[in-house]
């Protein structure tokens, strides 16, 4: 069985600022780490690997330094990593990202299960998984709260919708995106960290894949970001409640009565 886990590298903190002159995001000095939600995806794959001796391949599209997150995932226990890196891929939105990932998965070949994190914490969309599923014509189970193999060629998952708990059974190949609640990602052991440097990390560029150039990068991205700004929390005119808790509570009760809330 072969499992591909799609991972993204994101800035270490979400405290990004906006350059006052260029109005662009200022990410200088922010180290990259594996998207925290993708660690849950890697962990899930490793648990399935323990149960079935599956091969776990990590896949990421991004600049060369994303290799760091592939190493991190291999130090957790994944078998190999594939980095999709090319200037032609840059500036991709979720659609163009999903396209290249889908083409790469087709090239990896014989993939039984593709696991995604619930969302990337920088863009917060959660779209890439379903897009890849559609491009590969595979069934999808999003926001899985549990996931297990239930047959030689079958997974069973539970999914918590707003109103319903669903149990789904999918024939492989299938695409699953996981909720962060389903597991606690393991830490790399020193031995696995050492091993990770001997595991294969392959880089594929534009010419290594079968690609329609009109679907790549910025040109292949239907959406454009026209403005970025820092949200300003709405400030209110604060009326202090003062004195002892009893005094303050009676001031509040009067104020709420005046506002017809009591």
């Amino acid at each position: 069985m072969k499992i591909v886990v799609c991972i993204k590298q994101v800035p270490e903190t979400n405290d990004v600022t906006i350059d006052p002159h260029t109005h662009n995001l200022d990410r200088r000095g922010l180290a990259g780490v594996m998207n925290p939600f993708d660690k849950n995806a890697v962990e899930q794959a490793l648990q399935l690997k323990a149960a079935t001796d599956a091969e776990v391949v990590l896949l990421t599209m991004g600049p060369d330094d994303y290799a760091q997150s592939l190493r991190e995932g291999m130090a957790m226990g994944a078998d190999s990593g594939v980095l999709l890196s090319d200037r032609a891929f840059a500036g991709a939105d979720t659609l163009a990202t999903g396209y290249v990932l889908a083409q790469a998965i087709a090239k990896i070949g014989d993939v039984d299960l593709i696991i995604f994190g619930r969302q990337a914490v920088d863009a917060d969309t959660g779209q890439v998984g379903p897009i890849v599923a559609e491009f590969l014509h595979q069934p999808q189970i999003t926001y899985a709260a549990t996931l297990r193999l239930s047959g030689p060629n079958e997974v069973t998952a539970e999914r918590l919708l707003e109103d319903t708990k669903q149990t789904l059974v999918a024939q492989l190949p299938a695409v699953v995106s996981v909720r962060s609640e389903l597991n606690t990602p393991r830490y790399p052991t020193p031995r696995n960290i050492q091993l990770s440097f001997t595991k294969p990390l392959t880089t594929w560029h534009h010419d290594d894949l079968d690609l329609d150039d009109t679907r790549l990068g910025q040109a292949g991205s239907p959406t454009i970001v026209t403005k970025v700004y820092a949200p300003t929390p709405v400030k209110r005119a604060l009326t202090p409640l003062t004195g002892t808790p009893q005094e303050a509570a009676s001031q509040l009760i009067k104020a709420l009565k005046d506002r017809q809330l009591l």
Partner: protein
Amino acid sequence: MSKPELWVVAERRLDHIEPTTQQLITKATRLAGDHFHVVTVLLEATTDHLEDELQPYGPDEIRIVRDDRFPTATDAELADALKQLIDAAHPNTVLFGATITGRSIAPRLQAKLQTGLTADCLDLRFDDETLVATKPSYGDNIMCEIICPDRRPQMATVRPNTFVAQPQADATPAITTAHITFHPVARLHVTAATPVVNTATTVGDASRVVALGRGAANEDTIASATQLAEKLGGRIGVSRPLTDQDRFTHDDQIGQSGNTIHPDLILNFGISGAVQYLVGMQDSQTIVSVNSDPNAPIFAASDYGYVGDAQAFMTALLAQFA
């Protein structure tokens, strides 16, 4: 020349309409003015009448497709049905709730249509016929305006409770039916579906909320808060750290990664006021906060504030409710 269509895809929640649908219809009719034809697309079973719950919100048209497989259909099947409807009508814009369901179907549909989809939006407007969608990123630390200039339909999912649903007195939407061919996907089956029993109102639609943070997390305080919530006819909500306790879940959480709420009244106890929390509750009508730290950011976002101990204030308040 007929008007461009602005669609809201209706979502079912058990045997009812998911409230986000009604919120989106209200917003869509406001945005539409005379310029767009607002259509609510409803996929329902032959015996359903969910249109009755949509009609008061006054879209121009409710377009119904009936098939008994819809209530239990999977994402790919629903995306396929919507693709057929879109190919037939060429809407300008398609809106979904950013619920788990919406966020699962919309990107599949996007891939079929090869168009743009902006996720989890907090605001929408039109520049002529181009949708300008405001989306938070980096955990709500940054807002982005995103457009899809060249391809149609342009699509967005909108965070639940971002807009307020308002019924209209004189709403008379046209009710039409449309047809699609249902293409079953054999490889995925829903084998069980149990309703999550939660008959009480959720923090998302309570009109009074008592919110607890890390500074109001002990047994006694939670007990007092429960009494207070009962007295006010409201619900308890929590900041994120409290969802680590067994008694609270993600459904009780207020904030960017939880519920966006706008109750008439919210009382915040022991909550510092991180931006991720504030965005979830800053549209509440009246905001009261109690915190022992006079410099807690929550005060700048509050109408009334008390610097002091949460438990002491709650006790005093409970004593004065006759």
